[in-house]
């Protein structure tokens, strides 16, 4: 006999248990989700209005916020609403198939009032890029800055030597003139003596010794005047030697001018690193971060989610064709975000996400389409079917506006990169731990120039020429080729910007130097001609002046000699 009171009471208890299961599932799921996500990320997860039950095929939730592990007052991710529709028939077969789902209002990096950190996160190593840029910058800067700051030594040897010659010879000729002038006193003394003898001829014999002495003085004067004339001749020869020396100095100066070379040629590769390395590096870092995020977010289910159940073995029957135990067939995503202070909204889908990719037979695919100030298309493939994980991500940003910026090379020299539009295309593969692919950026319609505070004439000329040449560069391409591992990605930058700029700058520098050399040669020629003309004038003027003086004194001495000679008695010879 059925004991109804047993059955009624027991089924009442059973009903209470089932009700508890129904209504308690959501809080339990909430708790489990928070525990697992918080322990995995180290940041706070807040879920509102989670609605789940084992007796229904719909799971939904209200706002969800996941704090940023490293930024206390920022959310790593939050969304307004999510809903997942499960396949009922498959659910009865113990298969969780999300036929369609949606996550709406996704936001990355939104602010929050309370800290989203649970514990202090480990310090994250700095950017993988921009490590060698300072060094590269120095290499380039050294050449450019030394060029712009260079002051040519314009104290030619020719000028120095000419000045010395022109300074020396007037003194020498003045000394000769002074010597000739000093003879005048002695000439006058002899003349006075001769005059005294003429006034009193009877004393000739008595004064004969004095006459003899005067005669000898006249002879000495003649000799000294001849000596001066000889020195004038020597000086003339020496001046001609000095003139030749000036010309030799000019040749040496010309050789030095010819030796002036643009020894610091700019290296295009280094210049590319310096100019676009940091920005491209950021883009590469972002692309790598996406791949790393995909690898981290979608780990290999078999390797990562080892079944805790170890009792027995689940037999797969011959001919059994099951879908995976958990499969997200289609999940629609929508939200908004900000990148480089550019707001954008995005929509996208996730397809084929499963815990058993080898059974599903297809890789999971992610697609995001962003609109707004920042437009991009992101496609991702997550393949966990084999033993080696394979991820692929491709990003296309068709029209990224790049703000103008200055790139300082040192305190006084900087490049000015004007506002432009960038087309970025990236494709990265991650097979196992090996990373490969490239990030390519093409920029069109931008202004490029150089600014320098150096005010010397040559710097100004070079700057003008450089800016003229740089203005002709209207397009460049930067390609970063990736290699290495996901933990230690390496990339090599290839760009035609650096070589273009280097070509323009090296050309400008060469022209600048050539122009400067011509100016120096012209200046040297002018200086030399002036110096030689001065030397010639000096020779002509000073020498003539001395010679005139010497000739005049010679004539005086000659007349004096005749006069003194006429005082002597006939037949008397003075020895």
């Amino acid at each position, binding site marked *: 006999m059925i004991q109804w009171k*047993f059955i009624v009471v027991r089924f009442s208890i059973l009903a209470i248990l089932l009700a508890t299961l129904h209504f308690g599932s959501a809080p339990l799921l909430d708790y489990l989700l928070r525990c697992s996500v918080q322990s995995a990320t180290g940041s706070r997860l807040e879920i509102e209005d989670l609605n789940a039950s084992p007796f229904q095929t719909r799971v939904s939730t209200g706002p969800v916020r996941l704090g940023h592990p490293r930024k206390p007052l920022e959310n790593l991710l939050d969304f307004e609403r999510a809903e997942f529709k499960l396949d009922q028939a498959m659910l009865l*077969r*113990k298969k969780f198939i999300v036929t369609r789902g949606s996550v709406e209002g996704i936001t990355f990096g939104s602010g929050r009032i309370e800290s989203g950190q649970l514990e202090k996160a480990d310090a994250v190593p700095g950017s993988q890029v921009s490590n060698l840029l300072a060094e590269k910058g120095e290499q380039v800067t050294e050449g450019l800055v030394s060029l712009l700051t260079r002051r040519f030594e314009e104290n030619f040897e020719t000028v120095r030597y000419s000045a010395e010659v022109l300074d020396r010879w007037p003194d020498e000729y003045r000394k000769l003139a002074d010597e000739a002038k000093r003879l005048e006193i002695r000439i006058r003394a002899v003349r006075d003596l001769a005059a005294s003898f003429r006034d009193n001829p009877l004393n000739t014999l008595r004064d004969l010794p004095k006459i003899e002495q005067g005669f000898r003085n006249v002879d000495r004067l003649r000799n000294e005047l001849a000596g001066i004339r000889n020195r004038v001749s020597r000086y003339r020869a020496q001046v001609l030697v000095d003139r030749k020396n000036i010309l030799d100095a000019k040749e040496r100066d010309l050789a030095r001018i010819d030796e002036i070379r643009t020894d610091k040629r700019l290296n295009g590769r280094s210049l590319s690193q310096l100019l676009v390395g940091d920005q491209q590096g950021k883009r590469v870092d972002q692309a790598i971060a996406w791949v790393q995020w995909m690898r981290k977010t979608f780990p290999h289910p078999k390797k990562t989610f080892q079944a805790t159940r170890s009792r*027995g*073995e689940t037999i797969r029957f011959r001919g*059994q064709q099951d879908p995976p135990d958990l499969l997200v067939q289609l999940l629609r995503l929508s939200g908004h975000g900000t990148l480089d202070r550019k707001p954008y909204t995005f929509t996208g889908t996730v397809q084929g996400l499963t815990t058993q990719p080898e059974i599903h037979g297809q890789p999971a695919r992610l697609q995001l389409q962003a609109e707004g100030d920042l437009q991009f298309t992101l496609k991702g493939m997550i393949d966990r079917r084999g033993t080696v994980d394979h991820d692929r991500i491709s990003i296309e940003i068709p029209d990224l506006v790049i703000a103008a910026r200055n790139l300082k090379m040192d305190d006084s020299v900087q490049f000015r990169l004007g506002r432009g539009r960038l087309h970025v295309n990236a494709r990265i593969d991650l097979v196992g731990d090996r990373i490969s692919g490239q990030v390519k950026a093409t920029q069109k319609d931008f202004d490029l120039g150089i600014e320098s505070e150096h005010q010397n004439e040559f710097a100004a000329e070079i700057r003008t020429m450089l800016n003229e040449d740089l203005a002709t560069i209207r397009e460049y391409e930067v390609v970063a080729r990736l290699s290495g591992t996901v933990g230690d990605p390496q990339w090599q930058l290839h760009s035609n910007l650096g070589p273009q700029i280097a070509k323009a700058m090296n050309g400008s520098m060469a022209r600048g130097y050539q122009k400067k050399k011509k100016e120096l040669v012209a200046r040297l020629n002018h200086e030399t001609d002036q110096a030689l003309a001065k030397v010639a004038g000096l020779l002509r003027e000073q020498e003539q002046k001395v010679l005139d003086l010497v000739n005049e004194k010679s004539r005086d001495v000659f007349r004096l000699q005749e006069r003194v000679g006429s005082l002597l008695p006939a037949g008397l010879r003075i020895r």
Partner: protein
Amino acid sequence: MFLFLYKSSRMILTAIRGSHSPEQIAFGIALGMVIGLIPKDSLFAFSFGFLIFATSVNLLATSLSAFTFSWIGVLLDPVSHVVGRLILAYPGLQTTWLWLHELPIIPWTRFNNTVVMGSLVIGLLSMLPLYLVSKHLCIRLAPGLQAFLLRFWLYRKLAGRQKLAGAEE
């Protein structure tokens, strides 16, 4: 009011406790054994749980049995695995297993797990012998055991019995 609450709680306790007959206790032990042996993430375990609630078996005996055989079941896993594998891999049953696997609800039983199948079969085969042994033991040992247990206040409250005259000393 208090009388109503007291009577209600007594009725619930009585309903939960179930029958004291040796058959119901033995059946409870046998069912508890099956539940204990089968891994709990199988729908089989829940089905047997429903069966317990649907009958007037002694719940205390069933619970103690399920708890005890849960530990024994773990120790018996290697045997269950071998038995389950033999059954599931039996060529003649493959079509049946496949058909069952594609039915709704059935996959939740995890019948294709070797330990689940093995422990289910072992449990079902052991039910009758265990029932008979338990019933025999209950008949022989129950009076003495009850007299012993009636000395304890908690048992008396749970069992709803008064002290026996001999046990009051």
